[in-house]
């Protein structure tokens, strides 16, 4: 953790001044912008720094610089802070940070939640902020008692002077402590002294998520608010030519129909009239250049492109020569489709736009970017725009949109409505709305030596760039290679001496975006499915081959061994059940999974059990790590078995959960998660559980059927036995 990550006293005073009017900060954000767990701050609430306030009622409010979208950060960040603050855990509340540079991500320099980076990035800062606050509270008590601070200790929110037995609660000291100068440097506890970090801790947000009080963006209401839905073009890049709103305006409750840059907004008193009004709207669209797009054609184009190498992303040794001299070569190609994020809470955004400022309520992963884009759309300076981050009903990357599509559109609708407005996306809007995980084609050639070991490996990738044309381009694209396109392929851990990874980046008019595990969502599948083919071609056990190739990767090798051991790799399975294994390194974490699956005569796949081992460095909340692995596995199985976005004549062919199906409880396997103990710094948890499950499943299907999976989602028709009805 760099020193610059630590917020100085001077800086947070400025922050306090910006948002609360001085040192005594009372962040009375509108109630709508709060989570139910962060109930209204008490009348006397004192900021010890920008990350923690202490109330005279003993409440401790931790300010989260990151959004809670299910990954458990509203519990993990308070755990980090309170490891050092040592307040009574039962008194902890969480509040979403306002947009301010003090809350910028320590590594990215902007306020964002993504890339499985919150715990790794905040590992130092939140503990430091807790330690600074504790030091100030102790100092305040020592001054009151006229004793040395070093003669005092703390215990669950109480400062104690041992020699005299005097005690003072944090709440009673908060006012005086907030007047003190923050210490420049404070020592942090060594890991062996942790009392909270590493202990299974119940999530602070669970109660509110079991009684309907948790507040998501869609639940926000502000006085005078209208609700809008937007008719968007049926083809990406289309524009409104003309529209007829006569029938729409007859719907009781519809207030106005307005053209906005993204389409036609139907603005009404409530959602239902807006939706009915949109159904009655007639729009003539200028379809633009993408009206002939077809994913079937793209599949053929990608396959053709992959016949020649693309821009080199990684080259080790001399793969060309090694392939020529190999005893055996094998080739395989893999395809994965566009995928929608399909968060359960459809996109939405509330905007209150006035001449002198703009307030926004939404569940976002991208506060700094959204504020800049919203300010631009509103014609205001960014500091006049404030975003109240609500809970996110799922994010998976969709709510980190470089163009802030759902926020910018809502600003335009608010401008047209001349009233506070909530723009609501329906499920159909969500699935047809683009910003998908890109469609990818992966082509491999491997060369094996006489003993069956892979000595050469070439991997040609075809797919759109996510970062091209965004503000992340300078950060993520080097020498024509988008790092997100080749992650998980160019940084292969397996010891193969001659390796080449190259990339074709076609430009296609379908907006694409990061989707839980990003590039790893295709490389995890293709690399691990192909490695299984390589093992088979060389007459090797797929587990043993991986073990051999990981000789110089002790952390991954340990994870692989743990997963295999817990899954009883090599033991006999019931007839008709196959076992497959895969590993994947992503977001600095090591994951291995073993899948047990069977295939019915009609080709239907049943996943019985998934055993997962993970090394994510120091674990903050073990139950959260397990939950994220479980969730990642089910997310990955949905992609493996169920979902694809396809286009025909430029139109997205999927509408809702009947043709974009999610895995359901009756398809959900038994999942076991095993965590490798580690004292390394924490690494990512939200995404690394996703990539290995599709290949482990594909490999299990091969084990039981002898059929290789080369295309996701897995199709029953490809696996049905002859004569069986599919």
């Amino acid at each position, binding site marked *: 953790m760099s020193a610059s990550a630590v917020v100085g006293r001077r800086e947070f005073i400025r922050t306090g001044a910006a948002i609360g009017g001085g040192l005594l900060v009372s962040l009375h954000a509108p109630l709508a912008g709060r989570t139910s767990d962060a109930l209204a701050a008490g009348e006397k609430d004192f900021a010890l720094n920008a990350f923690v306030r202490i109330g005279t009622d003993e409440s401790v409010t931790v300010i989260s610089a990151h959004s809670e979208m299910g990954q458990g950060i509203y519990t993990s960040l308070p755990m980090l802070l309170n490891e050092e603050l040592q307040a009574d855990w039962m008194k902890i509340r969480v509040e979403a940070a306002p947009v301010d540079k003090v809350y910028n991500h320590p590594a990215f320099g902007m306020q964002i939640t993504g890339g499985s980076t919150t715990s790794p990035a905040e590992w130092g800062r939140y503990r430091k902020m807790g330690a600074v606050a504790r030091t100030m509270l102790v100092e305040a008590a020592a001054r009151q008692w006229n004793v040395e601070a070093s003669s005092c200790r703390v215990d669950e929110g109480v400062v104690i002077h041992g020699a005299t037995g005097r005690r003072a609660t944090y709440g009673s000291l908060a006012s005086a402590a907030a007047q003190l100068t923050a210490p420049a440097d404070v020592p942090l506890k060594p890991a062996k002294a942790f009392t909270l970090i590493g202990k299974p801790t119940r*999530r602070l947000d669970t109660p509110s998520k079991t009684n309907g009080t948790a507040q998501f963006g869609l639940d926000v209401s502000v006085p005078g608010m209208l*609700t809008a839905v937007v008719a968007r073009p049926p083809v990406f890049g289309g524009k409104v030519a003309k529209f007829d709103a006569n029938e729409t305006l007859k719907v009781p409750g519809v207030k106005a129909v307005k053209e906005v840059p993204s389409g036609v907004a139907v603005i009404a008193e409530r959602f*239902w009239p807006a939706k009915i009004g949109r159904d009655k709207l007639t729009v003539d669209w200028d379809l633009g250049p993408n009206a002939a797009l077809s994913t079937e054609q793209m599949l053929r184009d990608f396959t053709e492109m992959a016949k020649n190498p693309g821009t080199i992303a990684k080259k080790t040794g001399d793969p060309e020569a090694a392939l020529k001299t190999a005893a055996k070569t094998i080739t395989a190609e893999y395809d994965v489709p566009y995928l929608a994020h399909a968060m*359960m809470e459809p996109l939405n955004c509330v905007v209150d736009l006035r001449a002198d400022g703009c307030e926004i309520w939404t569940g976002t992963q991208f506060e700094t970017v959204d504020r800049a884009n919203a300010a631009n759309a509103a014609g205001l300076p960014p500091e006049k725009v404030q975003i109240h981050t609500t809970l996110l009903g*799922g994010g998976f990357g969709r709510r980190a949109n470089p163009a802030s599509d759902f926020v910018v559109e809502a600003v335009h609708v608010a401008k047209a409505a001349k009233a506070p407005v909530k723009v609501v996306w329906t499920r159909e809007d969500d699935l047809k709305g683009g910003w998908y995980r890109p469609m990818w084609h992966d082509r491999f050639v491997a060369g094996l030596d006489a003993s069956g070991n892979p000595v050469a490996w070439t991997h040609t990738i075809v797919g759109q760039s996510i970062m091209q044309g965004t503000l992340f381009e300078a950060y993520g694209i080097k020498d024509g290679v988008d790092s997100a396109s080749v992650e998980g392929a160019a940084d292969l851990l397996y010891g193969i001496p001659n390796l080449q990874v190259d990339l074709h980046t076609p430009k296609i008019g379908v907006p694409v975006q990061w989707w839980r595990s990003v590039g790893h969502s295709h490389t995890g599948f293709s690399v691990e499915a192909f490695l299984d083919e390589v093992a088979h071609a060389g007459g090797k056990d797929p587990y043993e081959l991986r073990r051999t190739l990981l000789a110089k990767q002790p952390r991954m090798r340990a994870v692989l061994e743990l997963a295999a051991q817990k899954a009883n790799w090599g033991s006999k399975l019931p007839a008709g059940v196959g076992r497959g294994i895969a590993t994947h390194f992503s977001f600095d974490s090591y994951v291995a999974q073993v899948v047990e699956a069977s295939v019915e005569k009609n080709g239907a796949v049943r996943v019985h059990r998934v055993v997962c081992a993970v090394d994510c460095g120091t674990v903050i909340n073990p139950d959260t790590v397990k939950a994220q692995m479980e969730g990642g596995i*089910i997310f990955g199985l949905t992609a493996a078995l169920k979902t694809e976005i396809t286009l025909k004549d430029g139109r997205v062919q999927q509408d809702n*959960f009947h043709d974009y199906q999610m895995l*359901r*409880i009756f398809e959900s396997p038994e999942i076991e998660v095993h965590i490798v103990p580690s004292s390394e710094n924490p690494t990512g948890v939200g995404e690394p559980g996703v990539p290995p499950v599709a290949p482990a499943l594909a490999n299990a299907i091969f084990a039981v059927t002898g059929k290789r999976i080369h295309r996701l989602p897995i199709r029953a028709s490809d696996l049905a036995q002859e004569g069986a009805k599919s």
Partner: protein
Amino acid sequence: MTSFFVNGKPVQVDVDPATPLLWALRDSLEMTGTKFGCGMALCGACTVHLDGKAIRSCVAPLSRAEGKHVTTIEGLSANLTHPLQKAWIELDVPQCGYCQSGQIMSAAVLLAENPKPTDKDIDEAMGGNICRCGTYPRIRRAIHRAAQLAGEGRTR
């Protein structure tokens, strides 16, 4: 005007009676615990009880509630004491939490009709509720746990 009961209290809603009950609850009665996920009874996020039966409120016209009793997540218990809420908290089921109102309301009808459900019973009763975060293994465990807690409650 549609008159009915929500969580035991009489209410009147003056919107088009064809409006889905979900939107009457959310937009007219400002009870936002019941969620919108698909609008086609495909995901279960909007599940409420109508005279004790689980229904998808996104496709149920308001008129269907006339004179009847609707129970929403807000009315499941006054203070998180329903066995399902206790079990959900004990096992930390929710992740993003958005689907959980519907999950719990579906599970409540299951337990009311079948106090000791098997895994198969759970699969059948909960198959209409999607969780994109993938909390299914915990939902299953929590329903079994709630059944146990409810059983202990009855024998005390």
